[in-house]
């Protein structure tokens, strides 16, 4: 299958500090790739690089075209949705206003209502809370809202930054179940950053292990699970 996203020799910088030293990752069209690695390895930085929120070098190819010179806004307009580190909720606005902003690129009220109904079918709990201020939702609901917001504009690639962060195991399992459905039903490809390697490998079909700013292993999820070193260091058995 052709890759919908590919980074080649991607470098990234925070000010003058280099954080990525040549990262090559790919997401197959319709597939799920997981980025694994320890804290500070460069997983979140890789997602930020793709959305051009930090300075980068190297090439990022989305759907056959280079996007590394585009602005964050234009990358979103091409169909890349990012659920950022910290969820990026518009906390002062209502749940529904958050979703309206997610659907900012949709043209017209009809397209919005279609998207709204579709997205709410995955997260019916949010629908009941549509008038509530988003900042008062529980952590799990805020994560669901962040995913919903990203889905509103019908993206072709979803970048997810630690959807399990700070949530109870039960909620995490539910969210990952829904993510699998979303991947299949929405035909949206996913690049997933996750600390919880076991969870990520269950969902993904491909995985890259990042250490100090470079990809050290790139393999199918099954191969990764069987890798002795990965199992010891990241799966813990």
């Amino acid at each position: 299958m052709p890759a919908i996203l590919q980074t080649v020799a991607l470098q990234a910088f925070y000010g003058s500090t280099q954080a990525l030293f040549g990262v090559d990752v790919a997401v197959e069209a319709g597939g799920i790739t997981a980025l694994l690695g320890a804290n500070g390895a460069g997983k979140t930085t890789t997602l930020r690089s793709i959305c051009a929120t930090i300075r980068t070098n190297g090439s990022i190819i989305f759907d056959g075209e280079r996007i590394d010179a585009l602005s964050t806004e234009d990358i979103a307009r091409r169909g890349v949705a990012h659920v950022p580190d910290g969820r990026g909720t518009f906390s002062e606005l209502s749940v529904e206003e958050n979703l309206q902003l997610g659907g900012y690129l949709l043209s017209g009220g009809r397209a919005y209502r279609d998207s709204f109904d579709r997205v709410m079918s995955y997260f019916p709990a949010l629908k009941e809370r549509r008038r509530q201020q988003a900042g008062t939702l529980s952590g799990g609901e805020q994560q669901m809202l962040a995913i919903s917001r990203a889905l509103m504009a019908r993206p072709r690639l979803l970048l997810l930054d630690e959807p399990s962060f700070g949530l109870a195991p039960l909620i995490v399992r539910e969210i990952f179940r829904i993510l699998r459905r979303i991947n299949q039903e929405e035909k949206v490809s996913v690049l997933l950053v996750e600390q919880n390697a076991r969870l990520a490998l269950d969902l993904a079909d491909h995985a890259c292990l990042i250490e100090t700013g470079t990809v050290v292993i790139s393999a199918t999820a099954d191969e990764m699970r069987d890798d002795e070193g990965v199992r010891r260091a990241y799966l813990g058995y």
Partner: protein
Amino acid sequence: MELFVEQISSGLATGSIYACLALALVMIFKSTNHINFAQGEMALLSTYFAWTLLAAGLPYWATFLLTIVVSFIFGVVIERTVVRAFSSAPHLSLVVVFVGLLLTFNALAGWIWGFMLKDFPSPVRGLSTGTSLVDAHELFVVAVTFVQLVALFAFFRFTKLGLAMRGAALNPASARLVGIRVGWMLALGWGMAGALGAVAGMLIAPVVYLDPNMMLGVLLYAFASAMLGGLGNPAGAVAGGLIFGVLENLMGTYVIGHELKLSFALAVVVAILLVRPAGLFGVSAVRRV
């Protein structure tokens, strides 16, 4: 009793003037989270521009509309050139920039148009209101203020662009990720504030005469009104302006005399903000940490 009613009605009229400029302040605050100290002087330049057009023989309403359009563009240009250059600077640097703009525009107005008081017409001057309590221009000011308030409220509440502007101000990083061109939203906020300020200037000038220092006092009151009502809330700013106008008149007439009415009004604001930091009608957002 008649004096009392008269003080209230004229207080409402001056209050509307404060409210007009306060709306412009709220506009920029809501779309960029900044407080523009140069708002009054931008309005001053707009008013002089209108005066020049009128002096050249253009009819009032054509002047009114043209001034609004030009002031909108002026606001956008100021944001795109001056303010943009400081987009990553700390808040305090921007305060200095705004004060600098205030002084620049003030000097510019004096340099171009001189310091002589100029008469500025009202489109309703001389019309009868059927009562001696309120004159036609005062009613006109009140009406325009309310039209602007309703329009602003509807814009932020019901339009996609209004929501996008709020989103861009509240969380620029997330706004970019959903495809909103944040830079243009900020410029648009400045443009709209410029237009609102222009209206305020053209409403004030017939009352106080046009001169380069016309807006200084008004700006102070407008700030106080916006703070009183809650900076992020257009309706609060208008309510704040009206409360201020009336309070100032009543206090001046009955209690403390003319000299102390400004100090008193400001003391009231401080007292209210002590009890309600978000302003009378401001809502402090709840945030989970």
